[in-house]
């Protein structure tokens, strides 16, 4: 089963067309295996991107280098998934 330990979801509130373009460049970088949950399409919508822990430092460096402010929406995706799984198991047992 694929593990998401240490993977983060980063939210960017895009403030300019220039930032939007820089995020679109990031999106085209296949080597970083980024999973855009919300794509960089407009300055009116946030951008959410799942960043594998292996590329976290590089992606954050890229954002900081271009003065693109971001927040961490999900600190460790696997923690949420573990909670979700435990809850499902509990519900399943309760139903039985």
């Amino acid at each position, binding site marked *: *089963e*694929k593990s*998401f330990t240490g993977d983060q*979801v980063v939210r960017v509130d895009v403030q300019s067309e220039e930032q939007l373009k820089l995020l679109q460049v990031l999106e085209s970088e*296949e080597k970083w295996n980024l*999973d*855009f*949950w*919300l*794509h960089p*399409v*407009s300055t009116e*919508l946030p951008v*959410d991107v*799942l960043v594998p822990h292996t590329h976290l430092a590089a992606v954050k460096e890229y954002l900081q280098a271009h003065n693109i402010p971001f927040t961490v*929406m*999900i600190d460790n*995706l696997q923690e*949420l*998934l573990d909670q*979700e799984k435990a*809850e*499902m198991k509990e*519900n*399943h047992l*309760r*139903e039985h």
Partner: protein
Amino acid sequence: STRSFNFGAYHRLETIYSWMDTFVAQHSNLVTKLDIGRSYENRPMYVLKFSTGGTKRPAIWIDLGIHSREWVSQATGVWTANKIATDYGTDASLTSLLNTMDIYMLIVANPDGYVVTHTNNRMWRKTRSKNSGYACLGVDPNRNWNAGFGGPGASSYPCSESYHGPSAHSEIEVKNMVNLIQSHGNFKSFISVHSYSQLLMYPYGYTCRGAPHQAELDSVAKAAVQKLSSLYGTSYKVGSICNIIYQASGGSIDWSYDAGIKYSFAFELRDTGRYGFILPADQIIPTASETWLALKHIMEYVRDHPY
């Protein structure tokens, strides 16, 4: 019993399918289960048909969870199906709707993907078909419809999350839906339910030009969203796919609209802004409840505006 079923929890495919059987048995005067074909990995695709009689009456299509990781969509489908069955006979408006129209609901539009999200990769979005010459699997089933197929906003790269596939309707899951809708021939509304980002959209996605009925669709969607928001204050945006998200070709509601189903809409259900696709299960019933108000508004409008 559907009475003991926990609508506020996420469930595996076999649990949902098993619930469907109980549900159909408990509401046999209203609900039937149609097997519309098999998925790529040979799983059955079941549509719940809500009908009070007659054949090929004007109908409303609702599919949910075509992107498998959007779990609140499928969970909302289960709750909504139950809501329709339990309110029939007590809610006068819904009863009148079902006395003239049928509702077809595909709760798990991408069963292979859904199983993968429970077993191998919670973040899986696509189908599971093999891509010749590539190790990565799957096609984005919402880029695979014959509506501007292969155009902007879809990828020709098989490893992309938005890969459009080798040809329109190449995905058997899409083809099964298309076959049912075409062979029926009397659908008046087509609603696709996704999550997350709180949007209610109408065609087009493959082009940014306005649809011929844009003004009417916009007004219906705005009124629907007003009802949705009245429950918990959830804020939604309304617009064409191209204008409020991005240009995306090969989408389901563009296909249905171009096939003559005027009242075509796509929902993106709620997001708390903190969890993305991992919306906690305690949000399922609030999400489904508010969505129901919008869905009901659209369905009533369709009933009251025959064409």
